[in-house]
């Protein structure tokens, strides 16, 4: 009798623990969206924001302030591209939209697909930097030896802390390996 009771208790405990195990396995995966949301909120890892043209138009332009925006572009080891910004830097008024472009040339004799990943430094500035249009929103298809101009439209939020007078937008171009 006592042994049977003990067995059923053991079974109960074991089943509960199996749920914990399955739950924690799921939690490992849940950390992926949690991490992304945290990065969006805090601007960790220089992840930049996306806003619509309408929202961007509603921002008040700060006519008393200049912010220097510098551009860099690098190609990840695996990519066959020549990739660089069309201009090294521009001075912008916070709240006003600007359009710049990057140039990329496919150095391979075959079709390749690339994806640009943006990052903004310093980190505190990244959540005040938003794009209304960007070639980084989708992956880019290149014919063999094709050269492309790719535009970015961005706006710097006037709420950008006063201590920041210069920021760097950098893109890393990756070969996605798709055909």
């Amino acid at each position, binding site marked *: 009798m006592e042994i049977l009771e*003990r067995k059923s208790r053991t079974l109960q405990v074991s089943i509960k*623990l199996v749920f914990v*195990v*399955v739950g924690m396995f799921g*939690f*490992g995966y849940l*950390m992926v969206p949690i991490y992304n949301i945290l990065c969006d909120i805090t601007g960790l890892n220089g992840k930049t924001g996306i806003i619509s043209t309408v929202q961007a138009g509603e921002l008040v332009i700060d006519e008393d302030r200049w912010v220097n925006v510098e551009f860099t572009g690098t190609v*990840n080891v695996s990519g066959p591209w020549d990739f660089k910004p069309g201009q090294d830097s521009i001075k912008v008024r916070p709240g006003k939209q600007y359009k710049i472009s990057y140039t990329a040339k496919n150095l391979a004799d075959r079709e390749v697909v690339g994806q640009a990943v943006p990052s903004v430094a310093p980190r505190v500035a990244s959540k005040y930097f938003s794009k209304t249009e960007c070639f980084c929103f989708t992956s880019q298809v290149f014919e063999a030896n094709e050269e492309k101009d790719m535009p970015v439209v961005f706006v710097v939020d006037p709420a950008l802390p006063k201590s920041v007078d210069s920021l760097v937008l950098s893109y890393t171009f990756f070969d996605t390996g798709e055909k």
Partner: protein
Amino acid sequence: MSAAADSHHDDHHHGPEKNFVKRWLYTTNHKDLGTLYLWFAFAMFFVGGLMALVIRAELFSPGLQFVDPQFFNSMTTMHAIVMIFGGVMPAFVGLANWMIPMMIGGPDMALPRLNNWSFWIMPFALAIFLSTLLMDGGGPASGWTLYAPLSLQGGDSFAFVIVSIHFMGISSVMGSINIIATILNMRAPGMTLMKMPLFVWTWLITAFLLIAVIPVFAGAVTMLLTDRYFGTSFFSAAGGGDPVMYQHIFWFFGHPEVYILILPAFGIVSQIIPTFARKPLFGYSSMVYATGSIAFLSFIVWAHHMFTVGMPLAGELFFMFATMMIAVPTGVKVFNWIATMWRGSMTFETPMLFALGFVVMFTFGGFSGLMLAMTPADIQYHDTYFVVAHFHYVLVPGAIFSIIAACYYWLPKWTGNMYDERLGKIHFWSSTFFVNLLFFPMHFVGLAGMPRRIPDYNLQFADMNMWASIGAFGFGGSQLLLLYIVIKCIKGGEKATDQVWEGAEGLEWTVASPAPYHTFETPPEIK
């Protein structure tokens, strides 16, 4: 034990199966499985130790001598995984199997068949893991942390590594479920939670840590696997993933994991010191609460492994202070061990020597851990030999010394014979001398900037690396003596009494030596 009692047992249960293969393959007896776990761990300590000796032979002098850098890197990686998953963890599970049912007055583990299964997965898991050395591209060489994207750039043996890690994880999760179920359900009447020996307590908490974090690790390596073979991009920036996220997920597992490797050691030392100081453990309940707090804190400090990835200042401060807070409950423990010895009538048999060596040298490792906890200092120490010195001090003269202490302490109960005390003392002193020769110089070369996981180094580090290598071979050789002592003890020796040690208290010392195949089939009375 009388013949009458023997035949009485045989009415209900068979003794050990006579056929050797059947006995060890089919056994569900907690003592048999404990023995299997311990021998398996012992074998893996030698395998992992040989890998360490390859590393130390290469580092004996500057320049490339014996192995190529890729193989060197796979040695550092595999040494870690073999020692952690094949050595220390199975050794602790083996001790838990042997001792927990006897310590709480239960007849066996709660889930004996699961127990058999969780052991027999391990040899296969480790065989798959070690076989990657023979495959194209060699074994894993990205460091045991398997950081993406580096770990995704090796050969196809990577898939085998992931599968073997899954098996090891399944084994320890099943083992933990079994241990928790045993501790919660198999205690003798009157054995309340706060009367349990500390080894049982620390294992209960460790088992909870295991079932909480091993699945997270399983998830992380599954993401690596799908990133590599199924086109996902959890950690690939090109697809919108983030390599730093791997480090967060890994260390969410990895930090509790290092406490999994040390909490049972705390339990062992808390059993041994009172025995040889002939005084009850000082501050029993504070020990239990300290263990619980360490386990809790282990979940909120993980990012101190990654101070250099570029976290916000607030994050670095939080993880720094949370990490330093761990020194408080650990300090409580060290204080209690010393207070237990205070004015005790101490004797220094081999288990006590190893336990004392643990207290002293684990504390060294704890102090260098505090230094590493400081963010500004850590940026200098990160990925240097100082880190290697730190975690080897807590794992070798820490966790492994406690396992050796436990073996000496309970060996007379397991075999019925006393081990050779003179050889045991020689084993202790030579291990202690060589382990310090091996790891102490690493602090200095680390502070001077020698990086980890590199087969060659600057000439200025040559002398200290030579000493460390001599220490490594000396320490490895000393463990052959342990093997000899254990075999000699199994074969014979002075007969052990039931209590074995004059100051020993607890249920395991009330049964005969050697412990009969079945113990406490009728629950003992707890006073």
